[in-house]
């Protein structure tokens, strides 16, 4: 985990053309960025493209990082916006398409098989959420980010994030057939 001072130093080195510094940033964040992109876009190839585009943007905009958030949060924000751009350009909302290639290879254990039997439905329901709700739920509940960081990553007020998370979970419950208070 990098400290704020280290992050600022790393970006300063990136701005000055230090390849190793950029490589360090990329390798430290690429898995999380890919995970977020895949959860938001629901397609592996698109997620890989978005991941690449995210780091290209990080490189180009390194000088614009002000340090008012953690570097990882800033990169998440770029990733989410990149995904939103992709969704807008494709002119579609991922609805009920089954999220291919999200599941790992055959796990083998009974409990794991049972859990795996539920996961396609959960992932399908997650992929069907509106992008704004999906991003909030992914960052909060799947990536485990504290809500204030989620707010920074999404560029919206904390109250908006709380509302999106709540409504996103409620929509998931409805689509999974759970009883809700509504």
């Amino acid at each position, binding site marked *: 985990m990098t400290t704020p001072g280290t992050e600022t130093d790393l970006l300063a080195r990136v*701005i*000055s*053309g230090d390849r190793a510094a950029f*490589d360090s940033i*990329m390798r430290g964040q*690429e*898995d999380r960025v*890919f*995970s977020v992109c*895949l*959860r938001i876009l629901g397609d592996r190839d698109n997620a*890989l493209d978005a*991941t*690449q585009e995210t*780091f*290209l943007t990080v*490189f*180009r905009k390194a000088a614009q990082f002000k340090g008012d958030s953690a570097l990882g949060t800033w990169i998440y924000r770029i990733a989410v916006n990149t995904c939103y751009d992709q969704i807008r350009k494709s002119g579609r909302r991922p609805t009920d398409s089954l999220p291919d290639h*999200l*599941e*790992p290879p055959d796990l083998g254990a009974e409990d794991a098989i049972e*859990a795996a039997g*539920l*996961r396609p439905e*959960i*992932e399908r329901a*997650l992929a069907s959420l509106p992008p704004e709700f999906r991003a909030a*739920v992914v960052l*909060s*509940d*799947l990536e485990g980010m*504290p*809500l204030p960081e989620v707010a920074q990553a999404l560029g919206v007020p904390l*109250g908006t994030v*709380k*509302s999106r*998370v*709540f409504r996103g*979970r*409620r929509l*998931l*419950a409805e689509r*999974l057939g*759970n*009883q*809700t*208070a509504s």
Partner: protein
Amino acid sequence: MHDHDLDLIASLADGSLDDPAVARALVESCEHCSLEYETQLSIIAALATIEPVMMTDLEKAALHRDLWTELRNQPTKGSAGAPWWYRLSYAAAGVFVVVGLVAVVAQLGSFGGDSAGTVAEVSSDLDAGETMTPMDDGGQEEFNPTTTAAATGDAGAESAPDFKTLADETRREELPSSVRATSEQEQATCLTDAGLEDHELAGTVDNGRAYLIAVPDNVALDGETPVTFVNASTCQVVHVEE
């Protein structure tokens, strides 16, 4: 039910409240709130069963390769930030070089005894696509259209290797012995410079120009393994056979 109450319930469910007492009291006193709370809890638990997703080694290697290829095409900080007069001075220097070369050619052409219109002959012959016969046998090879094409390293010219065949042979581990891997430190450094730290050297090829053949590290070779070809002189990726 006010929104902020629902947000409070959601925060209670995911454990993000510093002081959950008020939220707990709300849930215990309100059936509607209790149902919302249970719904939130069940979804949080369901989401926790989702396995984390990660890139495969192959995907990571391709990401790094493609990313560094793109970054190499980015304008450098220096060139993007150079003032207009600085760039103009480079353009002016280029013009002087061209004018000087033309003058040198004109001088050399005049030594062959047929001085009239030498420069015009060069340009018209090139335009007509004819092979230029140098006035001086000593070597104006650069004005021979045939050698010019080869010298510029046009990827479509005869000096480019058969990337597809080499890639197939690499995947089947059937590279000819003349191109088997070597252990030169310079070649490993070249792969790193090309942004292929995640790749290993599978072989080299020398077909008028040396290339390194690289495949992703620790990946079993099969028909779909991407094979990357790197110019051994410039250490830049010139071709990827997917």
